[in-house]
């Protein structure tokens, strides 16, 4: 479980996040949504520790990440897996080497066991036959799946996904969403997904935080969203003509 308490962040006097509170539970896919520039990525970077907030607390199962010693922070990070927007696979390594990398760094298992675990992860994301390919030889969707396999190889307690569907077609996006959802359930992880993809919101949004100009504007789940009276949220969710018509049909 991850809890945010009064997170604020500014850059050169410009307020990017203001007094953000939130609770992200185990075994749920938690979504942070909002328009471009609303502070989603900054919030995600603060949660994973790539940025330090100006104020507030980030509690990982009760322990404040910002107050941890360097060595404790390293130990906490080894329980995290992250899927980056651009996949961030290591160019010089094959897919299997990428997935094995965290195991090579931190696992005390034998080479055979590490390789077996990596193959298990690749099979889980249906990428078993691409293990010897380089990231550059994979499609965008395959790269995302390989990055998911790498993120889960150490059996993390916390999974973070930054814009997992950016640059993917709707069908591939669905595959990635389902994968994130299933993996979260299977491993009872605390998953936080940063997205502005409405299909993801309606498909896997068990707990949704809506950011608007750095403020937490709304929180709920995918069922609440359709009935929300929040104008800013509705403007964001039903921005396209297609979704507006869909809502009218629904009503």
């Amino acid at each position, binding site marked *: 479980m991850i809890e945010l308490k009064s997170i604020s962040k500014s850059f050169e006097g410009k307020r990017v996040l203001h007094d953000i509170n939130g609770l992200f539970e185990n075994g749920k896919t938690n979504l942070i949504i909002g328009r471009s520039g609303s502070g989603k990525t900054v919030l995600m970077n603060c949660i994973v520790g790539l940025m330090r907030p100006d104020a507030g607390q980030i509690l990982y199962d009760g322990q404040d990440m910002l107050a941890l010693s360097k060595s404790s922070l390293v130990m906490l990070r080894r329980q995290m897996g992250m899927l980056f927007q651009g996949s*961030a696979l290591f160019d010089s390594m094959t897919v299997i080497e990428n997935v094995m990398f965290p195991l090579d760094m931190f696992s005390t298992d034998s080479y055979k066991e590490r390789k077996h675990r990596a193959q298990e992860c690749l099979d889980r994301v249906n990428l078993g036959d691409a293990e010897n390919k380089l990231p550059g030889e994979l499609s965008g969707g395959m790269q995302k799946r390989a990055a998911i396999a790498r993120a889960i190889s150490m059996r993390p307690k916390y999974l973070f996904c930054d814009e997992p569907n950016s640059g993917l077609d709707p069908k591939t996006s669905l595959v990635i969403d389902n994968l994130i959802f299933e993996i979260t359930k299977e491993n009872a992880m605390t998953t936080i997904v940063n997205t502005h993809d409405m299909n993801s919101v309606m498909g896997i949004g068990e707990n949704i935080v809506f950011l608007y100009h750095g403020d937490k504007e709304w929180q709920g789940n995918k069922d609440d969203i359709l009935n929300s009276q929040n104008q800013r949220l509705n403007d964001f969710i039903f921005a396209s003509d297609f979704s507006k018509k869909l809502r009218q049909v629904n009503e």
Partner: protein
Amino acid sequence: MVLVKWLIAFGKYLRMLHRVFSRPDRVRMFFKKYYAEIYQLGIDSIGIVLVISLFIGAVICIQFKMNIQSSWMPAWVPGYASREIMLLEFSSSIMCLILSGKVGSNVASELGTMRVTQQIDALDIMGVNSANYLILPKIVALVSIMPILVTLSVAAGIAGAYAIVYIAHIGTIRDLTIGMQYSFNQWFFWMGVIKAMFFGFLITTISAYYGYNVKGGSVEVGKASTNAVVTSSILILVTDTFLTQLLS
């Protein structure tokens, strides 16, 4: 203002070195990366070192024989001068200036690209000390292969001098050999090795600093690569002055 900017950059450089020189997370992974870097930064540079040293050795010999030698100078002077120039300056300082272009841009652009594609962030999130994992093997690899590169450079320079004397008939092999053996001071070779190792450290750390701290996209990676080469070249020249004075 420029001084403050320079001091801030120097402070950031020292902080990066503090992260770099810590115990590797996994020694096995360090050596795996070290061997890869030895190949990429060292073995891959042997070709350019040999070619340039061979021709410079030949050119020094031609210059002394054709343009500087006169009737009052002994016939062995071109051999002596070729050896001393190769040992004292070319194989250490000038070779490192050339390497700062090849290796420096390679290191800065590799790390810069890893930064802008979030590969370094991925390492940090995993709990890996990214500076240590990525930069330390590069430093150790280049510094440890420098003695070999210096030796090869000196050998190629001397071979170039012999080759030009033999091919262009600008003197005798005997005179050249006498010059090459005249008043040989072994310390000059070690001085070149020490200087080159120091310059190897400068090239990798400065280039790594620029690459590792890139912010932005491909344009910034290009700028970082250029800055790495320019800064390390200037610092090689400046420190060469002090090191030469110190070691002489």
